[in-house]
């Protein structure tokens, strides 16, 4: 292993971007194939290329992570393009997360799109969005942050509206786009105000300028920071820019919902973590931690209570993903300088576990849509007797999302709440724990429908979609294995998070 690990340091600097490049190049390759063979008569080839591309990205990110690229041991983050991008442990951690989710979604889509004519476009849009997310994780300047955010968002709009004959899908796409456009402009305006106050777009320079005092412009900077936070609230589906999420997740093809609610949300957090921790000092009179405390509490409570009242599984999952955004916000809400790395890392680890369990849950919905069983809890009744394996997996996702101990979600939530208590915000942990306990109610409704209720009418499930099944089972295995295997995840997350704290 040692010689291989050495090599990562000896490569040219730009190769540190390889995980992002792998995603982007695969997307381009798919477009090339599509233009040569526009009828895309070889669906397996397209899906195979997209899968290999995302797995390659995952492999590269994993290799760099274990080799210590960009981490304290090998000289810290690798700065590229005049410091506009930085590849460090945190960027790689998130890139590995995005690549995993992308791989799952791409594999699952193979069956979901079985008679859809535009598969190459679908895969390339997914990969371009993933590229944007990978860059969001590495953005070290507000300009790059904005461009990466748009690169991730624009393909997402198209993906949500991908089923263009389906009125729900198109409507969802439009709503997502309108709110996205609004929040992008808020974000861009926020960036311009921060620039006006500090004279720089590079995060470390912004930090230095704000720490040094910005004579009379503190108010401008504060409004700017508030607006930047608004941009993140949109991307992470947090209050107050969360309205789009239930609509978009419900209308979108289920694999796209999985992609948006797992990867896209994590990307928003990746960017938010870096911009706020690296760019905006806490001791400059702008107390953004307070802002995130309010947002975290409101987001998790609102998401949970709304989820409890839903009748459709996909909408319930959409609101539950808002609730989980609230948990992940604890990473910033309980941040307190020096020791803040631990809670930040816990939040990252939670996003990773969430990436698997939430993607899996949405993919189960994709499976149900593929079979044509309905959307409500009642329609899921008795599915377990027809599809026991997938139902076991779905039960694992539900219990893990609720934070029951035998699954990965328990540890990630526990570490998150403990991190908050350690940082002195025990009330934040208490709100989180109460919400988490309540969430068992609506998650267990799915399990109850699957296993305990009898099917209402006869229904034929038709063929077994192998790829979709494989993706679901893989996500379930990962969710279970993340309990005994949580140690490396949390250790990596906390150590890489600590290094970005200035």
């Amino acid at each position, binding site marked *: 292993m040692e010689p291989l690990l050495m090599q990562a340091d000896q490569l040219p600097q730009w190769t540190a971007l390889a995980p992002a490049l792998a995603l982007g190049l695969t997307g381009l390759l798919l477009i090339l194939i599509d233009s040569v063979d526009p009828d895309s008569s070889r669906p397996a080839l397209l899906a195979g290329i997209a899968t290999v591309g995302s797995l390659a990205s995952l492999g590269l990110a994993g290799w760099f992570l274990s080799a210590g690229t960009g981490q304290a041991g090998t000289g810290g983050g690798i700065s590229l393009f005049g410091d506009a991008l930085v590849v460090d442990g945190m960027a790689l951690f998130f890139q590995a997360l995005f690549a995993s989710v992308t791989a799952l979604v791409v594999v699952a889509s193979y069956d979901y799109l079985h008679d859809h004519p535009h598969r190459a476009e679908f895969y390339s849009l997914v990969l371009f969005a993933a590229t944007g997310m990978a860059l969001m994780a590495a953005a070290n300047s507000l300009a790059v942050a904005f461009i990466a955010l748009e690169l991730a968002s624009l393909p997402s709009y198209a993906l949500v509206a991908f089923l263009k004959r389906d009125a729900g899908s198109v409507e969802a796409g439009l709503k997502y786009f309108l709110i996205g456009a609004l929040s992008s402009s808020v974000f861009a305006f926020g960036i311009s105000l921060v620039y006006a106050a500090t004279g720089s777009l590079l995060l470390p320079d912004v930090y230095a300028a704000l720490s040094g005092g910005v004579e009379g412009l503190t108010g401008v900077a504060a409004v700017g920071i508030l607006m930047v936070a608004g941009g993140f609230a949109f991307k992470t589906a947090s209050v107050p820019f969360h309205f789009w999420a239930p609509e978009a997740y419900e209308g979108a093809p289920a694999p796209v919902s999985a992609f948006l609610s797992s990867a896209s949300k994590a990307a928003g957090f990746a960017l938010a973590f870096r911009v706020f921790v690296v760019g905006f000092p806490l001791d400059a009179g702008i107390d953004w931690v307070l802002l995130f405390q309010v947002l975290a509490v409101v987001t998790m409570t609102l998401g949970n209570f709304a989820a409890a009242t839903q009748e459709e599984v996909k909408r319930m999952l959409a609101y539950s993903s808002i609730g989980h955004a609230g948990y992940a916000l604890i990473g910033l809400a309980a941040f307190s300088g020096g020791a803040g790395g*631990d809670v930040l890392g816990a939040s990252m680890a939670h996003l990773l576990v969430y990436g698997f369990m939430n993607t899996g849950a949405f993919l189960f919905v994709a499976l149900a849509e593929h079979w044509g069983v309905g959307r409500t809890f009642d329609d899921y009744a008795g599915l377990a*007797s027809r599809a*026991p394996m997938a139902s076991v997996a779905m039960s694992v996702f539900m*219990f893990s999302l609720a934070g*029951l*101990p*035998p699954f990965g979600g*328990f540890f990630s939530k*526990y*570490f998150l709440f*403990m*991190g908050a*208590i*350690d940082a002195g915000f025990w009330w934040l942990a208490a709100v989180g*724990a109460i919400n988490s*306990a309540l969430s*068992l109610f609506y998650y*267990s409704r799915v399990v*109850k429908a699957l*296993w*305990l*209720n009898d099917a209402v009418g006869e229904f034929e499930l038709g063929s077994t979609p192998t790829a979709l099944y494989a993706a679901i089972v893989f996500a379930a295995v990962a969710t279970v294995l993340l*309990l*005994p295997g*949580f*140690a490396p995840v*949390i*250790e990596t997350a906390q150590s890489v998070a600590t290094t970005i704290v200035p």
Partner: protein
Amino acid sequence: MIIEALIGITFLAALVVMLAPDEYAGKLAFALSLLPVVGSLYMWAGFDAGGNALMAGSIAYQTQLDWLTVAGYDLQWFVGVDGISLPLVVLSTVLSSLAIVSAWTPIDTRQSQFYGLMLFMEANLLGVFTALDFFLWFVFWEAVLVPMYFLIGVWGGPRRKYAAIKFFVYTNIASLVMFIGFMALVFNLPVGSFGLPEITQSLQAGELSSFVGLDPATLKLAAFAAMFAGFAVKVPVVPVHTWLPDAHVEAPTPVSVMLAGVLLKMGTYALLRFNFTMLPDVATRPLVATVIAAIAVISVIYGAMLALAQQDLKRIVAYSSVSSMGYVILGLIAYTGLGIGGATFQMVAHGLISGLMFMAVGVIYNVTHTRMVGDMSGMADRMPITVGILVAGAFGYMGLPLMAGFAAEYFIFQGAFASTVIPSAPLFTAASMFGIVIVAGYLLFAMQRTLFGEFSLETDYEVRRAHFHDVAPLAVLLLCTIALGVAPNIFFEMITDAIEPVVAVVGGGA
């Protein structure tokens, strides 16, 4: 390594059975479940620990590996057994195997899932009784709930969904309360891990610091209350027992056997390990001891009275479990060697006897399809062997000498009578003894009406003979009960050895 092997094999067996075809699942599950039985008996044969695992005693079959670190606390894979946990490990494996056999007749749908879940539950139960790290223990503790939820909810009676959810919600909220109570303790101790021995010893060395204005004594009291409340639901004691009859009545027979036989013991085991071993200074406060002793006596009497009022044989046995668990609590709070020892012994004895009773009722139900006392009479006519064993088991329940129940209750009464911890201990003991009279009353009454007299049956089922494999587990359980009654030292010696340090802390005497 044998504990890892035991748990690992059982998990693996669960997986194999889950994937097996329905026709063979039952037989396969039984065959595989014999492996942990052999393993646990081997552990019993080679057992060489001394003292209490939590109080610097030597731990048998110990493994201690670092798992991960959270906020400065090590989480470990830390397992091992002492004289308290080993009997419960043996009980779990034996009862699981027998419960699996007793499921062959009543379970006729989705067998592979049923037996897979039974084995999955067994694996987690083994984890609960062997884990010595709080986190590891908690993971197993909660993981037991998941298969139980499905076992009741999928294969249960008409109101199974209600019963399953009630069970799940009750016990989950209880776990949360307990978890918070325990965490409040740990975070104010200068310990570096969640290892139960380390926490216990640190607590007893008086190293607890105060927390948000609560001085250590108050904090201990609060934690004790939270943990007691959490575990009391699991035991269960009056007034948090209401989930139990629902769960029992709706659960299929083999699941009732596991619920009464092993799952209730998780509660009393945890009470002994956490509340009574870690916080003896709280438990021995006169007021606390009085309250707990009163709860115990009320559970004994009220549980028995409720049983007296039932018409459903399964409800009778279920409520009498509440009564029997009351004795365990009384024995624990007595803080004498015989009291706590008897309570621990009662956990095993009651596991065997209540398992036997539920199975016997199940066998009768299999052939008659009714459990109502008024619906049948003279069953002894048609199924003499089953009825014979049921009667023997019932006498065991009433405390017939030379059966395990007698030994256990005798120890408890003896220990509670001499207790210096419970104020006016003889009074409480005497009051609880009335429970025996009521137990004898309702069991004899129910048996007389259903088992003896002229045969008649008010359902339209033809009564066939019970299968051999229905009756065989009953016979095995009866033999085990008698063996433990004749020679309690099979377990009692190691139990006494392990509880001695607990008693010594409060100077409770024998």
